[in-house]
């Protein structure tokens, strides 16, 4: 081990977080490097100072022993607030329905996003192919089943429709969780939530109308799927 390597793991060594083998290598390096020994001594001295500071401050903190009673009473009387969050690692969340109970939702959302990405990538390739074909045979280019290019286009159109159905299904599933919990939320939070959802729905309707007016337009397909994606992400944020 050299000095550079030791400096990268000095904090871990100090806190005893290294594996046995790496810790032994670090100790061996310290035995032969005065500079790293000095750096470690500085780190240790600083830590002792901070610990002493914490101990001194904490010894002066007073906590009302009956606070638990007020907290319990407050929990019973106050509605769950919008965005009231739980620890990241605990999977609990403010809606009161841990996503661990709905693993299929995460899977569905992930699958939908993957489909959307792959469909739109394929779509661009197909569209480029058709533009090339247009120059040679303009009337044949968008005729499903008329050529291998037409088959690809047909396939891409079906993929877009499948992706849209998947999005709609994911949105319905997530929506059902949110609706179940609305009665326990602050009414102002519910109003804000509904206003956001209305704006997203209007965006989806507009994007959908534009796409179905020109179903072979790749950009509009991407635009529509992005609108669905936004709603999925919004609902997912609420439930995670």
């Amino acid at each position: 081990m050299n000095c550079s390597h030791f400096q990268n793991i000095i904090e871990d060594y100090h806190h005893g977080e290294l594996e046995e083998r790496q810790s032994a290598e670090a100790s061996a390096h310290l035995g032969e490097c005065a500079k790293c020994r000095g750096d470690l001594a500085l780190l240790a001295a600083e830590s002792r100072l901070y610990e002493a500071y914490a101990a001194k401050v904490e010894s002066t903190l007073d906590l009302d022993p009956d606070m638990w009673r007020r907290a319990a009473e407050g929990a019973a009387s106050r509605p769950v607030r919008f965005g009231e969050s739980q620890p990241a690692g605990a999977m609990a969340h403010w809606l009161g329905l841990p996503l661990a109970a709905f693993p299929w939702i995460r899977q569905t959302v992930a699958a939908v996003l993957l489909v959307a990405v792959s469909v739109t990538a394929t779509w661009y390739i197909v569209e480029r192919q058709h533009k090339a074909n247009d120059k040679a045979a303009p009337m044949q280019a968008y005729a499903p089943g008329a050529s291998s290019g037409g088959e690809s286009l047909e396939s891409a159109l079906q993929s877009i429709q499948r992706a849209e159905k998947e999005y709609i299904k994911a949105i319905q599933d997530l929506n059902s969780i949110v609706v179940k919990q609305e009665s326990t939320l602050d009414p102002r939070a519910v109003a804000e939530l509904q206003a956001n959802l209305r704006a997203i729905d209007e965006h989806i309707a507009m994007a959908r109308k534009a796409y179905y007016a020109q179903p072979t337009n790749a950009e509009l397909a991407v635009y529509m799927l992005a609108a669905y994606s936004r709603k999925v992400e919004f609902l997912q944020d609420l439930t995670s």
Partner: protein
Amino acid sequence: MLSIVKPNGDQSAPEVSVDASGGDPEAFRAIFHRYGKPIHAFIYHLVGDRPRAEELTQETFLRAYRALDRRQPAAKLSTWLFGIARNVVREAIREKGRRLHLVGLDDANSQNVHDESIGPIERILTTELEGAIRRALDELSVDQRVVFVLKVLKKMSYQEIFSVTGFSTGKLKTDLHRARMQLRYKLEPYLAGRAPGIGGAS
């Protein structure tokens, strides 16, 4: 149902284990008595304001009480509570729209210690230095402050801090390193030549 178990690596402070305590005031009281002070201290180190720390501690336990029956059985109760406390503090800071500012340590809390039996580190903890540490902590980002307090002051493992914050080990280490370097830089003028091994570092 409430039971007491010994946590790994901490024989002095048994971990309270709750199997199913939603709505059980006795279980909640026991949890508060075991974890109230550590959670209160953690929050105080993050916000640096005593009345605010007490208010946020109550908010933490309010949320904990409401969520106890939804807690993942595998989650350690202490890290679960620290996680709620961290979220409560983050939300409070966000709501204020600015950093919570240090309020000066009052005299009763920061009297110099002249007891000859204590070590040199404790002896240099003057009111001025305590204030400097408090201000330096306050100038860290919230994430850095959380990681520093949990690792250096609370001596949690990276795994435990992950359970509290959800941060990757890489982010934890980066935040810890930056916090330590910033504190070293801020405190160097107060420490140079005053304590063996501290201050005057390059």
